């Protein structure tokens, strides 16, 4: 087994996929004044997971559509979902999303790379999302 750090030099005793079902649902940005992604919807279909983001536009929410997500654990031996990555390519801009689930919240790193000739700088944003649990 090759490893670039001791952390990755592990004995693997399971071939199970990363368990991620419990993170499916609607997640709301903790910042009501956000000018970026307002809502995330994580869904599962046939063992695969998908994200649908909705962002704040000048005239209301802009649905970004559904994109597959790659589920992530917290370490190489864990099979418990701890984050995900996914990408959107809108032609003029690509957006990479990098999510880490910390204490039940999604900490979402958002990396925007413009590909048009608008002169806009690539930028990042980090925001927090809580699941809409429907209780209380």
């Amino acid at each position, binding site marked *: *087994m*090759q*490893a*670039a*750090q*001791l*952390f*990755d*030099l*592990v004995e*693997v005793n*399971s*071939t199970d996929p*990363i368990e991620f079902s419990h993170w499916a649902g609607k997640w709301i940005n903790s910042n009501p004044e956000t*000018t*970026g*992604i307002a809502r995330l919807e994580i869904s599962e279909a046939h063992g695969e997971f998908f994200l649908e983001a909705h*962002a*704040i*536009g*000048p005239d209301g929410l*802009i649905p*970004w559509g559904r994109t597959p997500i*790659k*589920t*992530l*654990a*917290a*370490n*190489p*031996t*864990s*099979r418990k979902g*701890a*984050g995900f*990555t996914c990408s*959107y390519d*809108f*032609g*003029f*801009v690509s*957006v990479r999303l*990098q*999510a*880490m689930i910390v204490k039940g919240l999604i900490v979402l*790193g958002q*990396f*925007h*790379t*413009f590909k*048009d000739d*608008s*002169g*806009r*700088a*690539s*930028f*990042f*944003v980090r925001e927090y999302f809580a699941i809409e649990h429907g209780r209380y």
Partner: protein
Amino acid sequence: MTNVAFKQRSHLEPALTDPAIRILNIEGLLGRWRNTNARTNGISEIHIARENAGFTVRIVGVGPDGPVDWPVAEGVVLANLEEEAGQKAVAIAANFDLGFMTAETHLRVNKGVLVIVLVVTFRDDSGRSDYINREFYYKAAEVE
């Protein structure tokens, strides 16, 4: 900003076309950073340097037989539209390809501490889970 494509309101933020935002406080990221956990089994050091017109990121992992130098990666600078800890500063993203694995990293400074978010994807058949991890680094002298 008018007549430009957008998918969210912040894509229309005028500050994005300000050349200064592309390198804002970049000096704070540059240099040699050491893991705050002296017993880490992960990445012991990160070196961020200016090279020609761009930036490079060099990572040193803790290996079974000593330090493991990862291949040097290009650092892509990302502007930050928001203040963190009272300061607005750019971040750097760098992707590493080690053949059997890839690592996607995002590096930023918060309150003087370098924070790395590391996404590791294994491409071998070892059965290891792909994972996301976060570690913290302090600024060290270039040569000890």
